[in-house]
């Protein structure tokens, strides 16, 4: 790879055989020189479950590396961590989505489905009709606006204070004596410690921390304790993408447990999964610490079982690796990764401290990127492998309700794109890997079901043929796991008799906002307070002020925008990152709609167009994360992460903002990843 006269990277076509020979020999040479863990795989939650499974297997027995993780760490991992700890099993929604149609009260904590998941919104209609939609969001988002006109109530906590707010709502429920004591005694443990922790968060104290009026905290609590049947607690990225994201979700689950919601019909807790295959991609070994079936890689019995399915000695399966954000800090550094294969993930845009990630990719000795478009990450690669997209391959995905859905091939991929399963099989052969690597998705799925058998996410009674044979509307043509010989129809509602822990109980854990001693105990890598003050943006052209940055999505775009920024109508509707500012803030900065805003945090800088917006609080600025180059908001995000889930702090980041100084005439454009000017450009 070289660069052209404009500094743009130059790529030249290469035959598949040569490409795979090159990749295998480079990976092998680097691993030979620097150890097996010098090569790694970064996966994605957009892959089909078959490919996510195969990638985990490929890492462990073909590359023999522990270094595999995926972009779901930036998405659902906090909810997964909390659900595993408290409920014993992580299935995003342990009940069918349609159950919400009979709900009268839904607490939606940190989710904006009107923009991010429009089909979901119809399921909120009955809660709105009953005046019971409670939306927690620092912004008056389109979803928060659904609470207007008697639909419910919008609580707007300061960014990063969701945990205190949830404790406050829980406090009122307990003070009112509205807890379901019979259920707690029968189905949970640890309630005494939870009660003690919550006792310190009465509404007036919560008000001082969150900015949410005590009266609104009480109103929300009273709505939630109206009647158990028909009450749901749902969390989203807003609650989860924090350094205390796992604690925040645990607080939400505790709240639900105190009301007796989970594990019963017509009520429950769930999380709204953020990516297409967010659930399936996290269940079968793509995570650093897991093996298929949601098994722990440290569990000897799990290793034994999976090794038998793979036809290998359990000894050769490496131990746990390191989670995504941390993994990306080891790029090209001594003792870190020297070779990386990125699959369906655009880390240059989506990872925290994105500018440093880009530098890290350039330090690697060898970078391979598989994608179906020329992503910003692919521009850094030594080798780009074009792969099919969703309608061009067979497979399955598992949706937010744990429902396993078939994805069918309706057309051949264009050009020379090749299926990842074929790529892995070819590479495995070149690497003399043990075991088999089928190129047939149905066969891989069949193997996956055996590997998952007996695990938490048990797919053992599923097959492509079986799924294809189901008739009727979507909800009856798919199955919710676990699907086993004992439960061949699947499990629409989990935990009805017992939770996922060995004793069958839900294990409530006391959580509280971290105090200084606790933060010190966890260390600076997990301490929001360890991030330095944001500097004045280097290109500030006017007065600057400090704000709290929170990030999120737009309706028009998906994830890093690799796909949607190529769709002309979407790009026309939302062509650039717009920083939402309260009018009083805009007035003080001397900016108006469309002006260029400069932002800086302790780790980086970014730019965006101003959008003056009364729906945002004056202490907050919102930016979407779909954009690249200087508009990459994740360049402002540090690598401080949740100690359990490895989730970065995406939702409460101190930044300084100012009107951007006009660029001097003739000066080169702002530094950033090269622009992709041709929206139709693809690899094929």
């Amino acid at each position: 790879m070289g660069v052209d006269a404009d500094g743009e990277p130059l790529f030249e076509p290469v035959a598949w055989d040569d490409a795979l020979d090159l990749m295998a020999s480079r990976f092998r040479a680097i691993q030979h020189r620097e150890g097996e863990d010098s090569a790694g795989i970064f996966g994605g939650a957009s892959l089909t479950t078959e490919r996510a499974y195969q990638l985990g297997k490929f890492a462990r027995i073909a590359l023999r590396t522990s270094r595999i993780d995926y972009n779901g760490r930036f998405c659902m991992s906090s909810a997964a961590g909390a659900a595993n700890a408290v409920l014993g099993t992580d299935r995003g929604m342990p009940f069918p989505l349609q159950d919400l149609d009979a709900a009268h009260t839904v607490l939606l904590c940190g989710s904006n489905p009107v923009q991010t998941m429009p089909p979901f919104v119809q399921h909120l209609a009955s809660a709105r009709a009953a005046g019971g939609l409670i939306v927690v969001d620092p912004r008056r988002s389109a979803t928060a606006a659904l609470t207007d006109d008697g639909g419910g109530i919008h609580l707007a906590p300061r960014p990063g204070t969701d945990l205190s707010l949830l404790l406050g709502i829980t406090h009122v429920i307990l003070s009112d004596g509205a807890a379901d004591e019979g259920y707690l005694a029968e189905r949970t443990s640890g309630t005494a410690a939870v009660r003690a922790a919550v006792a310190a968060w009465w509404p007036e104290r919560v008000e001082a921390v969150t900015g949410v009026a005590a009266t609104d905290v009480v109103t929300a609590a009273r709505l939630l304790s109206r009647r158990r049947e028909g009450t749901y607690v749902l969390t989203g990225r807003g609650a989860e993408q924090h350094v205390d994201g796992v604690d925040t979700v645990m607080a939400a689950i505790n709240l639900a447990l105190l009301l007796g919601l989970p594990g019963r019909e017509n009520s429950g807790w769930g999380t709204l999964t953020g990516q297409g295959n967010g659930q399936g991609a996290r269940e079968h070994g793509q995570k650093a610490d897991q093996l298929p079936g949601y098994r722990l890689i440290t569990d000897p019995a799990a290793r034994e079982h999976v090794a038998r399915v793979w036809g290998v000695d359990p000894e050769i399966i490496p131990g746990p690796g390191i989670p995504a954000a941390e993994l990306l800090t080891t790029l090209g550094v001594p003792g870190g990764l020297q070779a990386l294969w990125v699959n369906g993930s655009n880390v240059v845009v989506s990872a925290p401290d994105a500018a440093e990630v880009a530098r890290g990719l350039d330090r690697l000795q060898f970078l391979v990127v598989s994608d179906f478009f020329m992503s910003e990450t692919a521009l850094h690669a030594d080798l780009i492998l074009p792969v099919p997209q969703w309608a061009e391959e067979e497979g399955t995905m598992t949706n937010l309700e744990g429902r396993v859905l078939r994805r069918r091939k309706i057309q051949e991929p264009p050009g020379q794109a090749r299926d990842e399963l074929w790529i892995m099989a070819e590479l495995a052969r070149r690497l003399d890997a043990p075991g088999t690597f089928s190129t047939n998705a149905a066969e891989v799925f069949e193997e996956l079901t055996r590997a998952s058998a007996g695990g938490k996410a048990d797919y053992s009674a599923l097959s492509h043929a079986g799924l294809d044979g189901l008739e009727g509307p979507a909800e009856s043509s798919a199955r919710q796991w676990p699907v086993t010989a004992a439960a061949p129809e699947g499990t629409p509602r989990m935990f009805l008799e017992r939770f996922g822990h060995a004793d069958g109980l839900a294990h409530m854990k006391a959580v509280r906002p971290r105090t200084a001693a606790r933060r010190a105990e966890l260390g600076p890598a997990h301490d929001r307070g360890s991030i330095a003050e944001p500097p004045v943006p280097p290109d500030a052209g006017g007065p600057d002020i400090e704000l709290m940055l929170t990030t999120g999505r737009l309706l028009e775009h998906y994830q890093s925008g690799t796909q949607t920024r190529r769709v002309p109508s979407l790009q026309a509707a939302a062509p650039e990152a717009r920083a939402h500012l309260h009018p009083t803030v805009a007035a003080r900065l001397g900016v108006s709609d469309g002006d260029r805003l400069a932002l800086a945090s302790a780790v980086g800088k970014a730019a965006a167009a101003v959008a003056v917006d009364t729906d945002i609080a004056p202490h907050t600025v919102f930016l979407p994360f779909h954009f690249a180059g200087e508009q990459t908001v994740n360049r402002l995000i540090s690598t401080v992460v949740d100690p359990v889930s490895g989730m970065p702090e995406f939702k409460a980041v101190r930044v300084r903002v100012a009107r951007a100084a006009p660029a001097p005439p003739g000066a080169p454009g702002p530094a950033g990843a090269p622009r992709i000017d041709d929206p139709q450009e693809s690899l094929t």
Partner: protein
Amino acid sequence: MTDRTDVSGPGATVSSAGLPPGGSRRQDPREAGAGLEPAHGQDSVAFRARRVRARVPFDVGEHVVVVGCGPVAARFVDDVLPLVERGLLRVTVLGAEPHMAYNRILVGEYAVGRVSRESLTVADLETWRAAGVDVRLGAEVLRMDRTRRRITVRVAAAGPGEAAGENAQENDQENDGASESSSDASAGISGLSWDRVVLATGARAVRPNLRGLDPSPDGAVLPAGVTALRDLDDARHMRAVVAERGHTVVLGGGVLGVEAALAAAETAGTATLVHTGDHPLGRVLSPGTARLLAERLRQAGVRCRSARAVAVATDPGGGFTALELADGGSIPGDLLVLSCGVQARAGLAEGAGLRVLQGIVVDHELQADVEGRVFAIGDCAEVLCRDPGCEPCLQRRAGELRSAPAGMIAPGWRQAEYLAARIAAEVRALADPRLMTGPVEPMPAHEPSVLRLKAKDIDLVVLDSGLPVAGDPARRIRFTDDALCQDLHAEFADDGRLRRAVALARPRAMAQLTAAVEAGEPLRGDLTWLLSLDSQWAAPEPAAAGPADVVCRCAGVTRGVLEEAIDGGARTAEAITAATRACTGCGTCHPEIQALLAQRDASMTT
């Protein structure tokens, strides 16, 4: 222990560094800048260095005895639990009451049945014990000997449950025997060795000087029907009276008195509040706000009476019947709640030769002694340092800066968290030198205070940033509505930070202001958005649907485009979908498309 020249002996305070109040080193407050950082003059630096060198460093496995088991003690213990679990610290908690720490802030609400007993407990005994904390309840500390580092404890007769029973037994520690105790079984008195003591003894209610009332703070019990509403027994008593719709008379027009009267009136219908000055809360509110509050109290069923009380009248059985006033009047009632302020429980510290003024005097690192062996946190402590460069403390001495009002929990919790973090930093670094983080900075000399009325229908907050006052505020905003009894005023420094503010009956504006003060965040520009948060005006009618409205969000199809498609011949939803891509995604817009079709059909046929 080299630099002890300025210490006159155990129990003495630093002598040479302390200047008389209002001494010659006082600076003009304006020179002290915005004042968040203490001005570090040379004297100040030398003072700090002396203090640090006089301290006895921590060792691994030291025994910390926490005296008190209230919410502040609980916060401290919760925060040092990881150290206890790892054997880096031994902790014994001595609680005088037979209960685990409970939330005194909510005792008043418990008294009227607004909150459940269970929601009061702020610490979990099982969690503490599992971590290895020695918890002794019903244990009264009689003496603290700082020379031999012993503490003398009287354990109440074994009671049921979590009380004395198992506490009388010594917890055998295989340690250096630092906690070996001698006991006099017959009297229930035992001794305990310690390396450090954290005093969190809280405050007791002040008893007013009234005929018929024993003035001794720890003296005989109050007459039946008279309570200070401090502990759970008091609360149960009040609960019984208001449940029978008995009449409660509250003496004292501070925040706690107002809350008690409101709580009683909420359940019983009415209550009487006896206060001095023109209106309740007259000392913290401007006359205008106080008048509006009084009107709201009246509406809530609280009769306010400005008077001086002189006597408690009792019936032949000794039970309360009426409060007699200096003006000759008398207010009959079933219960008298004394809400005349609190005073620090500092007797133990005083007996040990520690300096006590309004409370146990501690510096900004919460040390009560020079060696750093005794600390005080919460209501029993008074922060007043002798640093000649510490402007706030100089102002406090001179009476120019008000100390935060007593009886609030937030400052105590901040202290507990700070002390735990300070000890944790030192002890963890001992266990693992890689964790050395350098000295923990002292607590800020300025602390914001938030005085928040907890009542069902009256939202009132008085905020004070604690910043030293230098000249007139740079900005004042004021909104008052006499008819609706609403009030909002705020004063700002020129950097936009709130100096103080009062909000009555504007709960959401109040929440924003409170959170801004707590976060130390400036508020600038047009602030009328604060008023809009609580506005009850009707929302404007939504504009009539227009061609630019997006109907299909997934494909971004507007009403205009759909109408064009219909006009162009699309007569079914399928045809519209084929023409516009509308409804190819989530399907949510299907009903709207159908409605549009029907509407278009109707208009075409007419």
